[in-house]
């Protein structure tokens, strides 16, 4: 081991030896890989990565530095960072700070120089698992067996809740740009900044609310639609928010959800959610919009998915079909995972992937237009 080395230890005992990267120390988390070839800054600042050690399969990371514009939240959330080849020099006209400095300043422990493909293959075959990165003083204090023990006693992602950690403390407003069309109450379960930006660009005032907001808090702002954001953790732990969502649906308020929000809509409708073997993380995932047969190339970051039947619309199981019929609207063509839900009898839909696409292709931006359309249609229905 070189003086400035680092270890990545997986719970199955696999050890990768590399170079310390970013902050020195110990970090523990669920090790997951993402295949995006661009967008490392958006990835690191995506709150959905809370509790996870992120492996970049793209070998060169950090080439374009970091900048204030591309932050998806106020800070880096990933628990740790694994790269093949960390940039020595930053080169991009928008760069303000080298990535390595951003990691170090944020105290993110990383490792570089390991065979990230071998690691990815292991995660693919064995499933996402817990792991730890150890560098600097952490290496001096313990032997590998002790480090492995630390990894094995860390909490698992199943049953984990990070909502309180990532949500905003105070409500805030992102004002509509141009002519105002309506107001959205957005429950922050780990929201990315691109999401309200897309809504605001379409004339929506976005009230971003803390995750613990109740239905009264939501109603207090007289929203035209309610939005549940993406976020980290196991959707099975968010019963409180699921109940709020059911209240939203009962009141016939238009609802839109992304990622965690999709999982919560699934749960609110009475479907289960389950953990995928190694998840979908990348910006090249083909999702088919079943209504048209068209394929969107989409940005994904999810370890859990909704267990709903693909095909004809079915009656949502919750409370004897209280919410009417629901249709799986989108599926991932790689593995037929449910990627979207659409209520037939109420104004509500959600997607498992990331139409705000930061990072990633903009193919699914139309869903924000669909939100506006839903608001307009709903309003027209009320008026008539």
């Amino acid at each position, binding site marked *: 081991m070189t003086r400035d080395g680092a270890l990545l230890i997986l719970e199955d005992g696999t050890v990768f030896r590399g170079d310390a990267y970013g902050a020195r120390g110990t970090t523990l988390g669920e090790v997951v890989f993402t295949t995006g070839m661009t967008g490392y800054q958006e990835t690191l600042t995506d709150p959905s990565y809370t509790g996870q050690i992120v492996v970049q399969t*793209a070998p060169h990371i950090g080439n374009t530095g970091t900048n204030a514009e591309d932050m998806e939240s106020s800070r880096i959330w990933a628990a740790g960072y694994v790269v093949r080849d960390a940039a020595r020099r930053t080169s991009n006209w928008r760069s303000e700070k080298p990535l390595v400095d951003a990691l170090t300043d944020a105290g993110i422990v990383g490792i570089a120089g390991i065979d990230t493909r071998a690691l990815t293959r292991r995660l693919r075959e064995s499933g996402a698992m817990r792991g730890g990165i150890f560098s600097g003083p952490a290496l001096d204090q313990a032997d590998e067996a002790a480090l492995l023990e630390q990894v094995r006693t860390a909490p698992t992602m199943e049953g984990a809740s990070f909502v309180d950690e990532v949500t905003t403390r105070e409500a805030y407003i992102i004002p509509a740009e141009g002519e105002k069309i309506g107001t959205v109450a957005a429950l922050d379960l780990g929201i990315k900044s691109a999401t309200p930006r897309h809504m605001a660009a379409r004339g929506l005032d976005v009230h971003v609310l803390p995750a613990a907001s109740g239905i009264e808090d939501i109603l207090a702002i007289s929203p035209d639609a309610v939005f549940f954001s993406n976020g980290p953790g196991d959707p099975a732990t968010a019963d409180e928010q699921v109940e709020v969502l059911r209240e939203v649906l009962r009141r016939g308020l238009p609802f839109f959800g992304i990622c965690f929000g999709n999982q919560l809509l699934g749960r609110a409708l009475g479907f289960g959610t389950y953990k995928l073997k190694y998840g979908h993380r990348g910006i090249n995932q083909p999702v088919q919009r079943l209504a048209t047969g068209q394929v969107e*190339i989409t940005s994904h970051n999810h370890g859990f998915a909704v267990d709903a039947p693909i095909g004809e619309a079915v009656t949502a199981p919750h409370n004897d079909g209280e919410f009417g019929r629901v249709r799986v609207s989108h599926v991932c063509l790689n593995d037929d995972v449910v990627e979207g839900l659409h209520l037939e009898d109420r104004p509500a839909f959600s997607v498992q992937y990331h139409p705000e696409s930061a990072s990633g292709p903009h193919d699914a931006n139309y869903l924000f237009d669909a939100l506006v359309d839903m608001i307009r249609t709903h309003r027209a229905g009320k008026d008539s």
Partner: protein
Amino acid sequence: MPRRTDISSVLVIGSGPIVIGQAAEFDYSGAQACRVLKEEGLRVILVNSNPATIMTDPEMADATYVEPIDPDVIRTIIAKERPDAILPTLGGQTALNAAIALGERGILKEFGCELIGASIPAIEKAEDRQQFKDVVERAGAESARSRICNSMQECLDAADELGYPMVVRPSFTMGGLGSGMAYDEEDLRRIAGDGLHYSPTTEVLLEESILGWKEYELELMRDRNDNCVVVCSIENVDPVGVHTGDSITVAPAMTLTDVEMQKIRDIGIAIIREVGVDTGGCNVQFAIHPTTGRIVVIEMNPRVSRSSALASKATGFPIAKIATRVALGYTLDEIRNDITGTTPASFEPALDYIVVKVPRFAFEKFPAADPTLTTTMKSVGEAMALGRSFTEALGKALRSIDVKGAGFHWRGDAPTGEELDALIEQAATPTDRRHVQVQQILRAAACGDRGADELIDRLYESTGIDPWFLDQILLVNEVAAELRDAAVLDEPLLRRAKRHGLSDEQVAEIRGINDDVVFGVRKALGVVPVFKTVDTCAAEFESRTPYYYSCFDEETEVEPREKPAVLILGSGPNRIGQGIEFDYSCVHAAIALRNPELGYDYETVMINCNPETVSTDYDIADRLYFEPLTFEDVLGVYEAEKAAGPVAGVIVQLGGQTPLSLARRLEEAGLPIIGTSPHAIDMAEDRGHFGSVLQDADLPAPPYGTAYQLDGALEVANTVGYPVLVRPSYVLGGRGMEIVYDDEQLRSYVQRNLPESGRADAPILIDRFLDTAIEIDVDALFDGEELFMGGVMEHIEEAGIHSGDSACTLPPISLSDAQCERIRESTEAIARGVGVRGLINIQFAMTQDILYVIEANPRASRTVPFVAKATGVPLSRAAALIMAGSSIQDLRERGVLPAEGDNTLMPLTQPIAVKEAVLPFKRFRTASGRSVDSILGPEMRSTGEVMGMDRTFPRAFAKGQLAIAGKGLPTSGTVFISVADSEKRAIVFPAKRLLDLGFEIVATAGTAGILRRNGVDCTLTRKKSEAADGSSEPTIIDLIDTGKIDMVVNTPTGSSARADGYAIRASTTSIDVPIMTTISEFSAAVQAIESLADGPFDVMSLQEHQRDLEGVRR
């Protein structure tokens, strides 16, 4: 949406001969298209004049027309075959232009043929500069500010508005032909003048300079359900100003954030929609300003391209194959991703490796040419390499290129002081060696002589190469410095060096030791490559396709196998003298040896580094290793495969000189080389040994000798007698070969070709040159017992023109049966004497009924595919089977070879096949901007070839001329003749014939005198050197430049008139008029012109040809 049911037959248009800017990549894409169409059960009709291609193998289509890609010829094919649809998007610009011509002439409408893949309006929107500018605007993006001009005056006016420098781009040309950067009015007049000429619509675009901006390309696909995917992003290391084909490029893009990447993705998709490429692929090129991020769309190709071949190999996403399927109506989600076998093609590949492409140039073949890289493509080939880091991939790519001096080096001291400043200034001009200059400059920083930041800043300013790339090159230098300074070569250090792409040879150079030692130490320390899979998805899904690349990471992915393997070494980057023909033979071996019906059930393993080729398609061999063809890399693959299962053999004789040059070392390292042994190959090259083979067989060779030094050379030359042919041994393509007439010329030759030590490493070969002989080429198979004559080819030009540049005919047109039989006997004696197991190519010269042996090459030759097409015998396949142990008798029984006889004597009804070479002279300019000289000689300069086949020689020759030039031979007009004194008698008859055919003849004084005295009327014109008297009467150069001459006959003359000859040929080359530089070619052309009066060309498919041959074989 399933496949359309209204199409049952498709005509595929190929790309014709290999030229600069349009190379083997279209054989790859066309072959994929043919395979897909056949799989879909469609009748496939193919037209392509290039016989060296896999796609023109008769099995690839139902009706294969090796005919000129000319609208009239294609009309005849359409009338005969009545295809439902035409697929023009896989044959490069040639096919697109042909499609437009078919549309314009109403031929598509006349026969109710639909274009699939791209419509005429879509092609025009993408190719027409103004229409494309509008497209870009409608797509919400920006083009460079520009003006369309149709005349020189308009160009000059536009210059006032846009200011210099400006880019000049002609419409509808390929490979950027005729384009360039104009820094002042003189440049503008020259470049735009050419551009107006080359553009079929006499149109050029002048635009603001975006020189020095970052350059990117996206490869896109779209289906009829409007699904779009971006297959790959490519970043040019060289900024805008160097044609992307001449740039070092990297995939994926390295220096863009996601925000910028998605912006260009959005623009790319908006453009493909706006242009209306509904079912197919395209590429879009972008320039991005390095400090403001302003994005400008450069251009779009509504077809598969060189870049899409590169992107296919780089990602594992087979663009041409999928483009063909979507053209048939499938949607991307209905098409499986072959590599994973489980996921659909409607996704975007994720790479977990870095791909670097390096171009290969041929400036050494054109010493007068200016090696400055511009927006006109000049490279003749390319190599691609994959690695887990940029430095690893770059190092591998540079050694794949197989050019001495193309890679990084650490000889001598790092440049300092003024030398350093001068180098930085030089690096501002892009050339084929700029990357090495940059590396040398950065050595100064690596050894601490100058600050890294300072040097990178200055280099960035000088070259426009992104600092990230500069830093990576600095990193390689730093690793080299660590290597140099280390006390011992230990494991971490060696591993670090290999991870940054250093070859054993480079490590050896840095350490001052032998590369065998490096290899040994490396192996002992366990620093050996592992192999990763190109899987399209960054390991997200399991891959079932063994497409591998090496790296120095931890885990290897090579799967064990049970069947024995045969490794086939490909031919590496295309270059002049070693092109697609060798890939052709390798592909045949890879397919034949895995076919149990032919007797062998091996797993075939291909090793190659050329992304343009069919051989590097992942489903040609059972396993593909995309690796450099060097000793260490091949050995790495061999060790990995030996660990995976038994290795039955290694084939090195099919890929040309690159693999052959490794044969001896590989054999010494214990690799089981099959076929003709490396020893036998060496012996055929060795004059002494080969001489005794000839002696034993009682065969005459021209007198010859070998020498290492000047004195010896002079002695040999005087013994054998001038003229002599001199060349270094071990060359392909006649590199360094010259005909020398006296001691003075010989002295000059030897001095130019000897290293500083004064003694050559390999001998200089000196042969008596038989200047009036007929040259003959044969390709034959030998199994140790029996000889199968593949074909006897008679050259049209006399001896002295490299066989690769000479036109030839099969069957021969002036050899008697008895002479052909003699050739066969001699061939058999040589094959036996050398110990051939497989293919042998021999060149003979026949003069005064004596058959001299010029040279023998016991390996695949350039002419093998031509012979196979002309005779209907699959020679390459047979050769591979013989190398694996089959006898010719076995192959006769299996139906691979004809049951009886061979091709020594062809049936009298056999049509005549003419092979004609395609020369790249018009691509190259001297530093002063003139065309380079176009005379032929013993050094090969052609990039490709065509085949013309017809009932008679004149018609076949005329077809060949049509196929190479596009315009073909003139049927009326003015012919200019100016020949050397020794040849004046020989032109009387053909000139008279031209006069009788209604041509006007123009000649310079000497030639005119002889013609007139022989009763051939002609107009006298002045040479340029005679124009000094101030008369305003035009010289021949003026006549040529103003398009008043329709054909030029000019043979090289003595030194006094040399400048005139050059000026004539240079002007002719510039304006693309047929030029004959030998009398024999002129005579053939006259016969051909005469035959054109017999009406339009008939066409015959290879399948019909084969059927005709069966049963009538003599």
